């Protein structure tokens, strides 16, 4: 077993190294700078812009946000010469812009992406790419009708160690028959709850922030913690679980669960829409189940995923992976056996690689690592899980009439 892995591993590393170097030789106009516009320049988008600043061949020339304070903050941080816009449609009208980075709250992702496609812009859009289940078909249709490059912020797809884990243990069948996949994400939001920066009502276009949401008064909690409110986000299932379920889809070659069932509660934050404590179960075609645990207390173990097969167990984290060949003896102990193979990486964020992949594909016009179809499929299980929680019922995908034209007849 170990000899086989070593041989595969060597080939994999050679392949990765050569692939990266060779990609530059295929890029058309590699010296041309890609001119970017940023839409929704809050915390996450500013992080993306900080990474892009350190990647060659791109230039931020326009910034859009409905909150002037953040818009100006982003301009001063990343491109003092950039044009500022309060309306993203005006930014999309700028013919100088090749591609846009969309980092708005979730409920704006799909509408802006569709408008950006119509304006012939390439797109890097944060996850979840859709806010509602029905948006998947709308976005898929728009993507299928365009020739633009769309990369969704499912950065696990560009993380080299996760790709390596797939190649070594999924693609070789080393795990045997996989029936059970556990995912979790634990974050402690309790300490920071209710502490928001000042929100200057005179500088925010609240109506534009609301978009498709029902009219409601300005509320700092809903602005700064928008992920916790159904009008703008979807809580842990669409914010965090979407990352791991995308890895499941990628590893297991699946796109949609058969069913979803969620139990959740507001033990900590009764003022929020989305539950702070939750378990969700998903049954997939392909003879396996996925569960997701999340709570907003106790950060021990953070986020991770464990695949259990008849021949072994694979744990994947953002800073590495560990494969355990099935032990000979059963044990009930705090200490795990030594892994058969373990890889740890120094830099635990694949977002930079993911942005680089996007820039490469803008030049080469190739399919990026996480195209729209991948993002649409990754958003759906969490949305089904939220539907289950909100309606307290088992949700069957067959009853939802879901389509995804973005795939254009292939499964990634």
């Amino acid at each position, binding site marked *: 077993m170990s000899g086989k892995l070593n041989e595969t591993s060597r080939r994999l590393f*050679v*392949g990765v190294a050569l692939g990266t170097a060779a990609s530059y030789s295929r890029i058309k106009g590699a010296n041309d700078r890609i001119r970017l516009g940023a839409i929704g320049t809050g915390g996450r988008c500013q992080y993306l812009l900080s990474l892009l600043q350190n990647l060659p061949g791109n230039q931020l020339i326009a910034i859009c946000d409905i909150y002037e304070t953040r818009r100006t903050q982003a301009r001063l941080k990343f491109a003092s010469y950039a044009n500022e816009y309060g309306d993203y449609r005006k930014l999309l009208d700028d013919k100088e812009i090749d591609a846009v980075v969309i980092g708005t709250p979730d409920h704006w992702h799909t509408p802006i992406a569709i408008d950006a496609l119509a304006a012939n812009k390439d797109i890097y859009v944060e996850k979840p790419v859709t806010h509602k289940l029905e948006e998947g078909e709308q976005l898929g249709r728009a993507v299928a009708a365009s020739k633009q490059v769309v990369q969704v912020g499912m950065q696990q797809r560009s993380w080299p160690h996760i790709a390596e884990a797939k190649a070594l243990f999924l693609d*070789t069948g080393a795990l045997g028959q996989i029936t059970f996949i556990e995912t979790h994400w634990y974050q402690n939001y309790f300490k920071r709850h209710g502490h928001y920066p000042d929100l200057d009502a005179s500088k925010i276009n609240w109506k534009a922030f609301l978009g498709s949401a029902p009219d409601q008064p300005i509320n700092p909690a809903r602005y700064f913690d928008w992920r916790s409110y159904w009008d703008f986000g979807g809580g842990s299932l669409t914010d965090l679980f979407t990352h791991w379920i995308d890895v499941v889809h990628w590893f297991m070659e699946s*796109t949609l669960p058969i069913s979803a069932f969620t139990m959740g509660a507001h033990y900590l934050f009764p003022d929020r829409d989305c539950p702070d404590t939750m378990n969700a179960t998903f049954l997939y075609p*392909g*003879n396996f189940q996925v569960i997701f645990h999340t709570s907003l207390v106790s950060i021990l173990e953070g986020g991770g995923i464990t695949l259990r097969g008849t021949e072994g167990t694979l744990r994947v984290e953002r800073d590495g992976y560990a494969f355990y060949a099935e032990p000979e003896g059963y044990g009930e102990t705090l200490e795990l056996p030594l892994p058969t193979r373990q890889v740890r990486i120094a830099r635990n964020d694949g977002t930079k690689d993911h942005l680089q992949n996007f820039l490469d594909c803008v030049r080469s016009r190739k399919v990026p690592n996480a195209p729209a179809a991948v993002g649409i499929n990754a958003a759906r299980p969490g949305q089904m899980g939220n539907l289950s929680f909100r309606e307290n019922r088992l949700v069957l995908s067959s009853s939802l009439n879901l389509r995804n034209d973005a795939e254009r*007849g*292939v*499964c990634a």
Partner: protein
Amino acid sequence: MRLGTPILLLLLCASAFPQTATGRKAPYFAFTQTNAGETPLSQYAGKTVLLEFVSTTCQYCGPALQSLNRLQEEFGRRGLQAVGVAVNPNANVLVDDFVKEQHLTFPFGWCTREQARKLLSLTPSDRFVVPQIVIINPTGEILQQTAPQGDDPLRNESTLRARLSALLTPAAPRTK
């Protein structure tokens, strides 16, 4: 110049021209069938093989295999052998039901993605979507294969039909 530099350059050049060009000899490849066990592709020597790598969990693969059903029916007498191989995890326990659901009329089995990559001449870091289609001539040379990612006209049934029609000699008329 250090010894490593020319070796690296050589490797980079090799990578710039991946060995996925058509006309190459297909490497040894075998897939597994529930009833027939390990089935080497060489078993179909003398026939034109239309091989399709799929996933039993991919919504597009069923319809693609229905195309193979039709093409096998249409071109079987002219020397076509359609073969389907599932590459998804757990395929070994899924193919039997899948074959029944899809009413497949040609050999269908499973292999690992790693095995498929070898036949497709892709490296472990190369990503490929399914379905992947490969046409192999009667002497075991790969005549055509789909692009690993993105659109490819070969996934269109009418394109495949035209290609096969041009490749295969017309069948002799049936005698009474």
